[in-house]
């Protein structure tokens, strides 16, 4: 069964190849069949492989499959090899499954779009690249997938390329992630020059020979961290993700919520031994995560574009994952990745349903009252929102975020991080339910233009449902003391094991989390549903309006970068518009042209001039002969 592993990334890539070669000549039904079929089949095989892996784990808890030798130059010999262990099997099955559902959704969402075939070609390429990324056995192949998903992200953000704003957003995403990609590449070079291999298990083995906190692991981990924060939209490189919402909604759901943006989390988890050897960088990961989730939550509170709220929410949730990684709770981070992939994709798909229904309306204050008109959408969205806000009785997946907070609480000196995380929990509940109340409650603003098709609603409901119940196995195991998902991951990603001193502590903390989340919902209810005039009066105070504008503009990061980097760069570019390196060559051309002018002026058709020139020439030549 495991030997079918190569089919998982290969099928979407084959789908991409067919769609790319036919270049939109196929009928829509055939395009859907190829795109959805290939990804669904891939997801099906991924599920079978996962079952096979869980039932009978291969020797060493890892299975690797070498397709061929990629390159061989001296001792640099990366293979195209896939590796399956508890980490990659989790990532693979979540990516493949969510991708398949979002592909189904896209057939409804993009039904009237002129670029139907192009869209699915990019989507298939994305799924293939993402699966290569998570299954890669060596860093070079991982980097191939990493760049592949970056390319698809760029292509899909700018999918509606006739709008200049979309193209600008696509370029911004590409440039900002490129900073991280460059750092990541340098990190890979550094690893290869010092360890002589790019094979991931070999690197993790080799790095353990270095003492903890020595130069090489710290440098490499820092470079990899820059790559991870750019890809995962963490502070200070998070500015591209909110703008990336310019792409179609399924793209936002798949790439910019569920899968690609968590590649940074995956990278750090994958290289966890390296990060353990660099405690300073690991601390930076935790701080970046905690601060990012808090700042993004504040920004999310003020946004009025439905998709931008969700974008900031994504940044914030990935911040939680980084926080977990930073305290060494790899399994908690990956667990949260899995649940987040379901519920955040569900929220995006729900947002897509609402936006499509209202005729491309993104402003939440122009929505409202959709609860009665679209009960199915409302309930599914509500459950996904409850999962995001982590409210236990109504959603079972509350524990993914709470595990992270518990780990932060237990880690040494983690109390500050824990408090930041707790404030984040409150804000998460507040912004999530602000969105729910404004969009689904309140008065209606105009009738919906059309009802969403079933191919859109069904995947959305499935994802919301799965998101809400994804915590069941973990919950059961923590009650009965058996091996849950968390310990399954823990086997592949050994981190520091921390236990509470007394059995009552987790319950106490759990109570605090629930109370915080409920308080957030209550505040949202009060300020957005019960008495919106309070919100207005808060915003109208001078401090309130200042904060509102500051948070709405994402803490002014775009402004800062515009002033710091883009502006000076544009000035330099303007100065150097006539490329000063070219001066020499243009001088050369100028001299040739002057000589040419001089010479062609002698060709004046006047015979007597010619005679004079011949005579003068003869005199010079004869004179030279005589003198010399």
């Amino acid at each position: 069964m495991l030997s079918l592993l190569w089919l998982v990334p290969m099928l979407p890539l084959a789908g991409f190849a067919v769609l790319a070669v036919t270049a939109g000549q196929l009928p829509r039904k055939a395009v859907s069949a190829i795109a959805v079929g290939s990804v669904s089949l891939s997801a099906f095989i991924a599920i079978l492989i996962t079952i096979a892996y869980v039932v009978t784990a291969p020797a060493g808890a890892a299975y690797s499959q070498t397709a061929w030798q990629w390159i061989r130059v001296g001792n640099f010999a990366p293979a195209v090899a896939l590796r399956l262990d508890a980490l990659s099997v989790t990532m693979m099955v979540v990516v493949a499954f969510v991708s398949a559902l979002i592909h189904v959704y896209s057939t409804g969402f993009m039904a009237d779009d002129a670029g139907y075939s192009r869209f699915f070609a990019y989507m298939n390429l994305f799924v293939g690249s993402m699966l290569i990324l998570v299954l890669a056995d060596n860093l070079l192949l991982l980097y191939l997938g990493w760049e592949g998903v970056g390319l698809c992200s760029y292509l899909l953000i700018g999918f509606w390329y006739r709008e200049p704003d979309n193209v600008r957003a696509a370029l911004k995403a590409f440039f900002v992630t490129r900073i991280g990609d460059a750092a990541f590449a340098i990190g890979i070079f550094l690893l290869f020059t010092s360890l002589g291999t790019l094979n991931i298990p070999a690197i993790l083995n080799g790095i353990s020979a270095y003492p903890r906190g020595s130069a090489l692991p710290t440098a490499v981990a820092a470079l990899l961290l820059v790559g991870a924060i750019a890809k995962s939209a963490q502070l200070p490189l998070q500015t591209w993700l909110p703008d990336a919402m310019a792409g179609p909604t399924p793209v936002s759901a798949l790439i910019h919520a569920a899968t690609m943006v968590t590649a940074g989390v995956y990278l750090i988890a994958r290289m966890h031994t390296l990060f353990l050897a660099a405690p300073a960088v690991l601390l930076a990961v935790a701080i970046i995560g905690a601060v990012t989730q808090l700042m993004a939550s504040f920004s999310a509170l003020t946004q009025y574009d439905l998709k931008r709220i969700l974008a900031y929410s994504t940044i914030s949730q990935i911040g939680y994952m980084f926080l977990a990684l930073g305290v060494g709770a790899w399994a908690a981070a990956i667990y949260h990745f899995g649940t987040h992939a379901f519920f955040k994709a569900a929220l995006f798909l729900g947002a897509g349903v609402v936006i499509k229904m209202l005729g491309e309306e993104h402003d939440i204050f122009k929505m409202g009252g959709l609860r009665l008109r679209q009960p199915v959408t409302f309930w599914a969205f509500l459950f996904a929102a409850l999962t995001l806000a982590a409210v236990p009785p109504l959603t079972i997946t509350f524990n993914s975020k709470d595990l992270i907070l518990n780990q932060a609480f237990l880690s040494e000196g983690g109390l500050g991080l824990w408090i930041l995380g707790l404030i984040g929990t409150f804000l998460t509940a507040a912004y999530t339910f602000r969105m729910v109340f404004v969009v689904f409650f309140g008065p209606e603003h105009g009738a919906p233009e059309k009802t969403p098709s079933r191919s859109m609603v069904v995947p959305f409901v499935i994802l919301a449902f799965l998101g809400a119940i994804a915590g069941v196995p973990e919950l059961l195991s923590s009650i009965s003391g058996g091996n849950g998902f968390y310990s399954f991951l823990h086997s592949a990603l050994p981190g520091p094991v921390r236990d509470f001193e007394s059995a009552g502590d987790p319950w106490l903390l759990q109570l605090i989390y629930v109370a915080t989340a409920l308080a957030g919902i209550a505040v949202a209810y009060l300020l957005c549903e019960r008495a919106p005039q309070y919100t207005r009066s808060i915003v109208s105070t001078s401090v309130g309006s200042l904060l509102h504008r500051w948070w709405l503009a994402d803490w002014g990061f775009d402004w800062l970068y515009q002033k710091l980097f883009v502006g000076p760069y544009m000035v330099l570019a303007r100065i150097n518009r006539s490329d000063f390196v070219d001066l020499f060559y243009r001088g050369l051309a100028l001299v040739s042209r002057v000589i040419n002018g001089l010479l062609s002026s002698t060709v004046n058709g006047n015979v007597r001039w010619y005679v004079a020139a011949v005579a003068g020439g003869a005199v010079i030549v004869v004179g030279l002969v005589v003198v010399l």
Partner: protein
Amino acid sequence: MATIPVEAGFIVAGLLFLMGLLGVLVRRNVIYILLAIEIMLNAAGLAFVVAGAHWQQPDGQVMYFFVLTMAAAEVAVGLSLVLQMYHKFNTLDANLINKMRG
């Protein structure tokens, strides 16, 4: 017979050649240019003869015959060209006949 020093012969030939060259350069009438060319040819011929006399060789005079023959042929072709020129451009001014420029 008093011999003329060879230098004097060459100086006369050189002066004649210079005169011819100046004529070619200065005159604008094509006929005069042809005349000046004849003078230059004769200057060259004179130089041959003087050199032949100086070294007691007949080759100088033989060369002069060749030059003479060539000059006759040149004049025949040149004059017919001048006639054609006059038919075509209605002028013999070399400066105005510069249509072959470039």
